[in-house]
């Protein structure tokens, strides 16, 4: 785990099912996340992903990479282009800083419209916990 390490990208097809399942799993019943007609009345051409789902996907991206013992300490995201059905979001990440067993990872989730999400995640990776971690020799963590 070194500054500059790149995480392998994660491609997430943005299906209608994912958007609705994510909204309901996060108890978010705002109509723009499940009702296309009402979304259109509010100026969006279709339903779009809620921020809680984006947050969950970002968290998953980090823990998928660093392993189940990795502990999320902070997730800070900013939304840009909406995730709408039929699009694909590609999450990428770069380790920005390593302080002992804690890494700060800069993440970007880009879709066909632009950057859907940008942010930073602080994750603690106890020694020997990570599956994708460098042993210190090669420096390539993926």
């Amino acid at each position: 785990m070194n500054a500059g390490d790149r995480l392998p990208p994660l491609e997430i097809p943005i299906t209608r099912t994912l958007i609705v399942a994510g909204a309901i799993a996060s108890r978010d019943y705002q109509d723009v996340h499940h009702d296309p007609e009402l979304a259109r009345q509010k100026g969006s051409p279709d339903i779009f992903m809620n921020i809680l789902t984006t947050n969950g996907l970002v968290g998953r991206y980090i823990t998928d990479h660093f392993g189940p013992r990795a502990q999320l300490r902070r997730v800070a995201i900013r939304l840009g282009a909406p995730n709408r059905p039929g699009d694909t979001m590609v999450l990428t990440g770069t380790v920005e800083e390593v302080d002992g067993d804690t890494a700060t990872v800069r993440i970007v989730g880009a879709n066909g419209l632009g950057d859907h999400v940008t942010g930073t995640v602080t994750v603690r990776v106890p020694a020997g916990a990570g599956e994708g971690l460098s042993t210190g020799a090669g420096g390539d963590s993926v």
Partner: protein
Amino acid sequence: MSGEPEVHEEFEARLKAYEGLPAAATGVGRDPVNEPMIRHWCEAMGDTSPAYTGPDAIAPPTMLQAWTMAGLTRRPERTAAYDELLALLDASGHDAVVATDCAQEYLRPLRPGDAITFDSVIESVSGRKTTKLGAGYFVTTRTDVRAGGELAGIHRFRILKYAPAHRPSAPAERRPRPVVNRDNAGFWEGVARHELLIQRCTACDTLRFPWLPGCNTCGSPDWDTVAASGEGTVYSYVVMHHPPFPAFEPPYAVGLIELAEGVRIVSNVVGVPYDKVRIGMPVRLEFQRYDDELVLPVFQGVTS
């Protein structure tokens, strides 16, 4: 909203007054942290981490906000102050909302059985910002989430309350349909072939327009047609400013056109600014398609 800067300043001062006031006071999570909600979340996210299953399961940390959500039927636990702030923004036309930022700190893991309580404060209200979505105000709240009374996470959330720059426009209105009947069907058949047909009395050769069942000169019911050459002049005109009708965009010129054959027809004068139409202006017939079904004879101004 007015575009006057001092009006914005006064409004912004009213919004700023809400900073530091509680947004939710001791909200109680609808359900304690529980396995089914964790499972539904993991299924939706495609998260297969073993950390979230089994006897030592923790909840995915990013579920922090989900435990505070009111759900479908329960009113969100908002204070009167927060409701007022949102109402103030709604009333000023900033009635659309979108979440823009979420920053969460996780102090200790949440486990099934943890009872959730939370307090929320209005941390900041921005000045007026212009965004791609429309002009609006960012409202940031900070929520302290507790498990069994112990601080477990801090959730900062920013929304944009905005006046949509692109309100959906009403579906395009179609022009009114002509009323086609036994007496004028031949005229509309001609239009469909891009011919402007004038009726001619076969008894006395008088041309007549619009179409009628009998001759105004001799009373004969017998007729045939001649196709107009398409040349004409503006005999008179009006410019429509008000009221607007669906499918018509005022201002526009309506002309009474005298055809070269001598009869007159009411139609639009096109291709010339509405305020440049003049009596005596030469015009030429053309057929304009308005939609799948509707073609109409209109008159192009000849300005040379």
